[in-house]
């Protein structure tokens, strides 16, 4: 599979965004949702990929670089380029940095489960990083800002209670191809925007290889499927292959649980989230 060539190839027209407008809304969102709950700071996991680099940039602009802590948490098999890219972003933005090599704690755990496969190890790493972020959330009085985009959230391409965990998420309604546009416009280094997307849980991992499709194709399909509720027959008429459509629909459906709170057995007349419905911003 080729590199995404995120800047060189034309973006599917309906997903082209006005980056200035989106940036203005997202910065307002961050300021508002952080300050009204009595916080002034943000902490995030910075991988050196385009999603977290973009979120770091938005956070720095919204609250000022001294109020943003980027935690870089490599494992020994992580690509060294990820770390250097992350450091470049930290330097460019002037935000705080904390580096924690998660290898000792991961390895200590898997000594007991030496047969664990890559996926299990990858999920564990994502959750270790989450616990570190939430520890610093408490220690530094900072909200954890999430970096999952709409494509990942819909496909469930993330670890529940791992990288999907956060207090606020500014990019969860932007498809990956829109993240590229905004990141480019906001000044994320071009090399970061253009590199092949990877969860970097193990060497050589590639999102598009794992998913089996290119983000630009996935986003096009999701645009019709999710945003405009096209039916399978209509999508086939647009030229999408049936197998591709079915695979994406299955992923969206099978991962619905990751996007919801745990299901609660209903007993009373007022059950949390079912008929006990308050805004998240209750009291703010």
């Amino acid at each position, binding site marked *: 599979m080729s590199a995404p060539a995120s800047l060189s190839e034309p973006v599917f027209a309906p997903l082209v*965004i006005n980056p200035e407008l989106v940036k203005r809304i997202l910065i307002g969102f961050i300021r508002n949702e952080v300050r009204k709950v009595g916080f002034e700071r943000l902490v995030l996991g910075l991988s050196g990929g385009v999603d977290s680099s973009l979120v770091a940039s938005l956070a720095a602009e919204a609250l000022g670089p001294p109020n943003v802590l980027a935690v870089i948490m490599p494992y020994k098999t992580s690509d060294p380029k990820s770390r250097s890219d992350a450091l470049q972003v930290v330097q460019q933005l002037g935000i705080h940095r904390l580096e924690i090599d998660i290898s000792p704690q991961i390895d200590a755990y898997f000594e007991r489960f030496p047969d664990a496969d890559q996926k299990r190890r990858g999920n564990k790493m994502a959750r270790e990083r989450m616990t570190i972020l939430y520890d610093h959330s408490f220690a530094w009085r900072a909200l954890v800002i999430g970096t999952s985009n709409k494509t990942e959230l819909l496909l469930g391409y993330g670890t529940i209670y791992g990288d999907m965990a956060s207090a606020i998420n500014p990019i969860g309604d932007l498809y990956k191809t829109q993240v590229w546009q905004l990141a480019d416009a906001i000044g994320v280094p071009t090399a970061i925007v253009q590199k092949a997307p990877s969860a970097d849980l193990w060497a050589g991992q590639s999102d598009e290889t794992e998913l089996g499709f290119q983000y630009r194709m996935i986003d096009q399909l999701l645009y019709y499927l999710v945003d405009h509720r096209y039916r399978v027959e209509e999508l086939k008429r647009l030229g999408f292959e049936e197998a591709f459509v079915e695979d994406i629909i299955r992923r969206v459906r099978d991962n619905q649980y990751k996007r919801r709170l745990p299901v609660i057995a209903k007993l009373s007349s007022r059950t949390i989230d079912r008929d006990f419905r308050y805004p998240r911003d209750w009291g703010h």
Partner: protein
Amino acid sequence: MNPDGRLTVGLAQIDPALGDRDRNLERHREWVRQATAAGANLLVFPELSLTGYFLKDLVPDSAIRLDDPIMRELGALSTDLDIVVGAVVEEPDHRYFNASLYFSRGELVHLHRKVYLPTYGMFDEQRYFAPGDRFRSFRTGFGRAGILVCEDIWHLSSAYILSLEGVDMIICPSSSPGRGITTDERLGTAESYNLVCRTYAQFLTTFFLYCNRVGFEDGANFWGGSMVIGPNGDIIAQQEDADEALVLASLDLAEVRRERLTNPLLRDERLELTINELRRVWHERTRKPF
């Protein structure tokens, strides 16, 4: 109204705190002071300006009753200028309405209960509110006015009815969340509202005051864009940004007369024909066997 036949209107494009009525009331006082100092005769607040919008189960806790002491406090805000305030109103039978209240010289002049409660997509109003059952105009010191709350204007009949009552101005308090990202400089919602509000003003040859809120609730942004439109469809004043702002405009009320002489659309409107045709449609619908 000023002696020269002009009216200075203010649109209070504010960011109400969700579920915090006391704080919002205090902020209303500040905006009234500011608008009074700026010479406004009428100040419009957005939909649910006293409470915030996505209240969900906070609706009963946020409500006011027409016999509450807070009504006197709201009335007191209208000593020097008329005001339109958005609130949850609880009836004695415990139905809750999304309402806009018009106060003048300390008195409640008119109350509009939102008729069209959006319950689709991100909206869930019918879960919490009872719908209003009427569109009525009322007299003000500046001519005849009518209030439509947000979604009400997405139904042509609402503005049409007010128009046939002879309104000089339609006041639309709104809490419209922004959505629709394209290459445009404005959100899709902003484009749509501009189109709708201008169309109403021009088609119905009436002033149109659109006051939308700003801020964020549960991640949704409110896009502002409050505007004053003349009876020829031209925008007289608009706050393009989603920042808190007092939008002021000086209106020549005689423009309604001049526009209706140039464009006698209202004169030529065939009310009886419309009623007859609507009755026919209704009969045909109800006569269907299944």
